[in-house]
Each structure stands twice: as C-alpha cells, then as structure tokens.
C-alpha cells in the first residue's frame, strides 16, 4: 500500500529567491524505511513537512498523504505547563497504560507527573518520541529527534522503536546527521542536493 506519493513536487517559500527543492518524485510504501540525506539547507526538513502534510507543494502534486502520522520534531514541542502524562494524553487520550509502559521502557516512569517545561532536552525528546509512537502511526517521521540523547538512552529509544515497529509495522522516515546512529542502517536513502 502506498502511504505517500509526490509527483515532481517543488516547494518555494514566498519571499525567498530560490525554491527549496524542485521536481521531487517520491513514493513511500507501507512498512518501508527511509533516510533523508543531503547538506544542510537542501530541504530535508521541508520534504518531511511535505510528507506530514504541513506544507503544500508550489509545483507538481501530492497524490497520496499518509493518514496516521507520528512525528517527532527537532524541537520536542511539548506543552510546557502540562506534565508528561498530560502531554501524552493530549494526542491519545485513552492510551494511558500504553504511555506508562513506554515511559517504563525508557526508564522515565518517575517523571510521569513532572511538568514538561522542567525536563532536560534529552528527557523531552524521549517524551516526544513516545508521543509519536503512542498514536500507533502508519508512518513515523523523525527529524533529528534523538540528537540530544547519550548513547545508552539512544539505544533504549532505538529498541523501543523497533519493538513497536514489530507490532505496528509503520513506515519510518528519518533525518539524522550522525552516521553512527542510524535506526535502520540499510534504509533507502533519499539524497537532496
């Protein structure tokens, strides 16, 4: 099943002289793994936003958009006044047991009632990852979402993603700058230049 299909899509932000990218054709299938690469400023994040439906192409067309998206942004984007559990319930109000299980898997159950604003970057990134997984996504989009984690924490996060993936079978699209930390080292690579 095709989750996302772009045909010769181009993106040009108003007020910028050059387009971010032009003529990108991309199809993502169910359960596929993808890595977006390219030097900075070539539009990796913009392409991911296109996949998430947050941008519309200025040229070309999008034939298919994924339905259930889990996304972890480069910034955690948690609601700072709410505690960790409230942040997770915000996207999936009935998944409290699932949320707690994932917090335990990442060794963060103690923090469930802490205000999101009081978390460290690494803690917040892990909560944002759990939030993305909690909606049982058809596609998981990770935009440098685990950059702030130390190695053990990163490994735990990776294991959590893989174990959830075995259950839910979601497609995975990743942007990562660190070639040593790839969730799926043999993923299909989409290079932007």
């Amino acid at each position, binding site marked *: 099943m095709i989750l996302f299909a772009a045909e010769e899509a181009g993106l040009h932000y108003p007020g910028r002289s050059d387009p971010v990218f032009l003529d990108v054709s991309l199809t993502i299938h169910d359960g596929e793994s993808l890595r977006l690469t390219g030097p900075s400023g070539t539009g990796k994040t913009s392409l991911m936003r296109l996949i*998430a*439906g*947050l941008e519309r192409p200025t040229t070309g067309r999008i034939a298919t958009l994924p339905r*259930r*998206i*889990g*996304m972890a*942004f480069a*910034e955690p*984007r948690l*609601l*700072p*006044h*709410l505690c960790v559990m409230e942040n997770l319930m*915000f*996207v999936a*109000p009935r998944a409290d047991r699932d949320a707690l299980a994932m917090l335990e898997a990442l060794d963060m159950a103690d923090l469930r009632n802490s*205000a999101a*604003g*009081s978390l460290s970057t690494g803690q917040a990134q892990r909560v944002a990852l759990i*939030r993305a997984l909690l*909606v049982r996504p058809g596609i998981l989009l990770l935009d440098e979402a685990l950059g702030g984690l130390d190695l053990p924490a990163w490994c735990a996060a990776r294991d959590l993603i893989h174990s959830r993936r075995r259950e839910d079978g979601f497609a995975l699209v990743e942007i990562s700058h660190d070639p040593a930390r790839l969730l799926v080292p043999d993923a299909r690579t989409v290079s932007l230049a």
Partner: protein
Amino acid sequence: MMHRLAFLAGLAGLIALWALAARESLPAILPGPLAVARALGLLVTDREFWAGTLLPSLGRAAAGLGLAFALGAPLGLAGWRWPAISALLAPVRLILMGIPAPILAILCILWFDGGDITVVLTVAVLLLPVFQIAIAEGMAAVDPQLAEMAQVFRVAPLRRLHRIVLPAVWTAFGPALRIAAANALRVTLLTELLSGAEGLGSAVQRAQSWLQTDQLFALVIVILALIGLAEAALTRLLRERSRP
C-alpha cells in the same frame, strides 16, 4: 505572620489617627470611624440598598463588560485573522481609546435613553477596544510550533482550543480582563453620576449633597471593596491559570 501583624498595626494606627481627626471636626465634614461603621452596617443590611442601588449598578457594569467582550472578541479574532480588518477598525479604536470617559458618557446620555442602556453602552464602548486588542494579541501569542504539532497528530479541535489556544489567549486576556472589570465599575459610577440613573453613582451624589458624610464614606468603602474583590478574584484566576 510578622507581615500580617505589621499590616494590622498600620491599619489600627490609621483608624486611630482618623478617630482623632474626626473629633476635631464636624461629623458632616469628617465622620468618625464608629459613625462610618454604623452607616456601613445600616447600608449593607438595607434591602433597598441591595435591590435598588448596588445590584442595578453591578448589573450594568457586568452587562457592559459582557457586551464589550461579545463585540470585542470577534473583532479581535477577525483582526488577527485578516490584518486588513484590524487596519480598517484602527481609526475607530483610536478615537474610542482617546476619548475621555466623561465625554463619551455625556454623548451616550444625549443619544440614548439616559438609563440602563446609556450606562451599559458607555461601559461597553469604552472597554470594547481593550478586549479587541487583548484577543488579537492573545491569538498572536499562540505558539505556531505547538499548533503544528497538534495538527500533525490530528488532535480534536476542542482539546486544541483548551490546551493550546486558550492558555495563549489568556496571557493577554487575563490582565486585560482585570483592568476591564475594575474600569467597568468606575465607568458605571461615572455615567450614573452624570446621567442621574439610579445606582451607586447617584447614591454617592445624594449622600454628598445631603451632607450624609458617614453614608458617603460607607458607600466609598463598599465601592473600594467591590473593586478590590473583583481584582482579587481575577488575580487568583490568573495565577491558577498560569500555574504549571
């Protein structure tokens, strides 16, 4: 504890000074604390004061506040969404914000019936720009990153409103509401004073011209208490809202 004691001591000192000064002058000029306390007691136990004076004034202030919000909030939203509307409304807003309250009150008295409608409209017209600006500022304070996050996760509109939009709007709207509530009461009194509409304002006027100075003081205490209560309630609401 120490602070509270010091506060009480200050208050007692003030009352003692007042009592001393009152002994030196006519009750009609400066009534003593006891006389004012008695007048206050009579006032707050008088059904007619509640039904005929206090409640009509409070009702007018509340209605004016409500009307200002009902008109100002949609205008603020529209101005935030379409900046052209904000520009279109700017001249009217500048006039309304620049016009002194007594002058607006006099104009409203001339154009409307001189009773409830005049007072309510004067309050509403004066406070409308406050709400319009507060809502527009509050909407502009909504974090676009959080709004996007909610969009990606397809969060239900009501939950988005509750968790993302309202807290942001409240940062600008809360303080505006606190100012507006106290001003609603002040403008109500002023318009009542000028228009002759029965209420707290004309009660103050009557107490003054009949030299019932003890009653005048009691009325002032009631008014200060009302404004203080309104401010305290809203401050508390604000603090609760912004608590993490």
